[in-house]
């Protein structure tokens, strides 16, 4: 970059940095506020003294979250969902993307298959008919209701398919000459080559499964089976109930404030896993954008 030291340029830089810093702060200060609230006493929170540093430091809210409530049971449901769901997503994506990466000559009906999957991106039956199908299949209240309806993430599968198509064809041809069948080619040759692409779409799946909450709410009759985000969602709703009912009653107001620190702690705990894997996420999501060929 060519350095320009004129006054106007310097003024621009000062202004530019100021705006960038303010905007970036706007993106993280709310999280810091949440963290500060979660570690503060409810009295300090209700007095409005807490900004970005805990006042009357206490871990009460976390003690509550980790002992009472359904935090741990729902965390366990979420972990199961992420592990089983992502594995199934990956297996089905590979099994689908590999044949579909073939040309029409090498896979009869390829375009028909492709159309079959793409229609589901364009059009869906909507909430009620899908709900009725899940009810009919008897998956209600089982973890499979959260996994099977989205077992094949079509968009990620297309990313993977495009990635396979980008690999040199000679690799596969030489394997065929050596006498390898499609299954051997897939497991011995393609899978190792697909690692970066699988990491990308795998992370899409992990984040998707971890962050979903709506299917948990509608497909689980028993709140004990809620995944973590669905459980956190019920916390939001009950908090709202308290807020609507509280009015001017002072004792209720106090209990609401307790709920506020308690809720902040649980929200923060729910965010930790994503924040921990965030550096990887960022790298791979950027890569995924390029693989998905949203390019300039």
């Amino acid at each position, binding site marked *: 970059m*060519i350095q320009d030291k004129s006054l106007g340029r310097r003024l*621009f830089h000062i202004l*530019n*940095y100021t*705006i*960038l810093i303010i905007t*970036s702060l*706007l*993106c*993280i200060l*709310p999280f810091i*506020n*949440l963290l500060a*609230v979660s570690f503060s006493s409810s009295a300090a929170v*209700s007095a409005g003294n807490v900004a970005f540093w805990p006042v009357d430091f206490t871990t009460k809210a976390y003690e509550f979250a980790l002992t009472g409530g359904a935090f741990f049971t729902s965390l366990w449901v979420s972990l199961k969902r992420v592990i089983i769901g992502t594995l199934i997503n990956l297996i089905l994506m590979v*099994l*689908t993307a*590999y044949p*579909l990466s073939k040309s029409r000559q*090498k*896979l009869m009906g390829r375009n028909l*298959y492709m159309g079959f*999957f*793409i*229609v*589901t*991106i*364009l*059009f*869906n*039956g*909507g*909430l*009620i*008919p899908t*709900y009725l*199908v899940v009810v009919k299949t008897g998956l209600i209240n089982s973890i499979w209701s959260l996994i*099977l*309806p989205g*077992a094949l993430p*079509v*968009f990620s599968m297309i990313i993977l398919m495009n990635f396979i198509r980008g690999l040199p064809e000679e690799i596969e041809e030489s394997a065929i000459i050596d006498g390898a069948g*499609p299954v051997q080619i897939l497991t011995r040759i393609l899978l190792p080559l697909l690692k970066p692409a699988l990491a990308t779409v795998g992370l899409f799946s992990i*984040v998707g499964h971890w*962050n979903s909450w*709506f299917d948990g709410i509608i497909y689980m009759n028993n709140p004990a089976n809620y995944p973590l985000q669905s459980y*956190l969602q019920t916390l*939001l709703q009950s908090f*709202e109930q308290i*807020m609507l009912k509280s009015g001017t009653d002072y004792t209720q107001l106090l209990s609401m404030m307790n709920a506020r620190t308690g*809720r902040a702690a649980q929200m923060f705990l729910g*965010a930790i896993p994503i*924040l921990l894997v*965030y550096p990887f996420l960022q790298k791979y999501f*950027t890569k995924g*954008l390029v693989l998905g*060929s*949203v*390019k*300039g």
Partner: protein
Amino acid sequence: MIKKLKQQSPYHLMLIPSLVLVFIFSYVPFYGLVIAFQKYNPGLGFNSPWVGWDNFHHVFNQPNFVRTIWNTLYMSAFKIIGGIIIPVMFALMLNEVARSGIKRTFQTLVYIPNFLSWVIMAGILLDILSADGIINNFLSIFGLKPVAFLGSPSIFPWTMIVSDIWKGFGFGTVVYLAALTSIDPGLYEAAVIDGAKRWKQTLYITLPLLMPTIVLMSVLSLGSVLNAGFDQIFNLYSPVVYQTGDIIDTYVYRLGIQQAQYSISAAVGLFKSVISCILVGVSYILAYKVANYRIF
């Protein structure tokens, strides 16, 4: 031909699990859409009596349905416009930062909110936007009255628009930064020789070369005009703001799941799906024609 099919059979076998699952959970619900033309009775199932277009007539004659469509359209219009302008501006400003470490820090900070679910974001927003939350405390320093960001029908839609842009602009920034890095530096050198300052360079080189990406992102977001952000609104609204905050998806949910009016709800869902499908189709054709972009 039979020989060929036999040769290809491993590929076809690999596709079976995906075909079956997608068929059950995406295609069977299409059949379930028939209930939009019936007076659905859970006891009778799909054998419920046919009523033709009655459900549609009923819905369209409801004053709150027209209001819901209007809310959906204008909230998503502003979300799309802001969701394009802000990241483009932010990426351009970030592009003026010479040090790559600082640049990456800003980018990392604004990208964080993207990975958290709307449940957690709603938890944070409920906290900071409440009557005694940090934002209203901050406003009171300047002697301003507390603003009911989530409780006032006139302000609620704007809270939704701004918070949606706030959550999502980091993603757009990454896309546009990726496009910016692909601009040939030789163009800038040539411009400097011609005596163009940074502002002129931005105006005549950067922006025009960014245009295809901007057009592409705008066109692709066209397909989601009828999804004004279910996750966000569902978690933040309350009966007080139904009038201005209700969108098609939240309306379908309340009607269908909460009030068990399956047929009417499915009719609304079908209406939305058909329009969405047309929009997605048109936007993909436009993306291909205008920006030469294809996903498959």
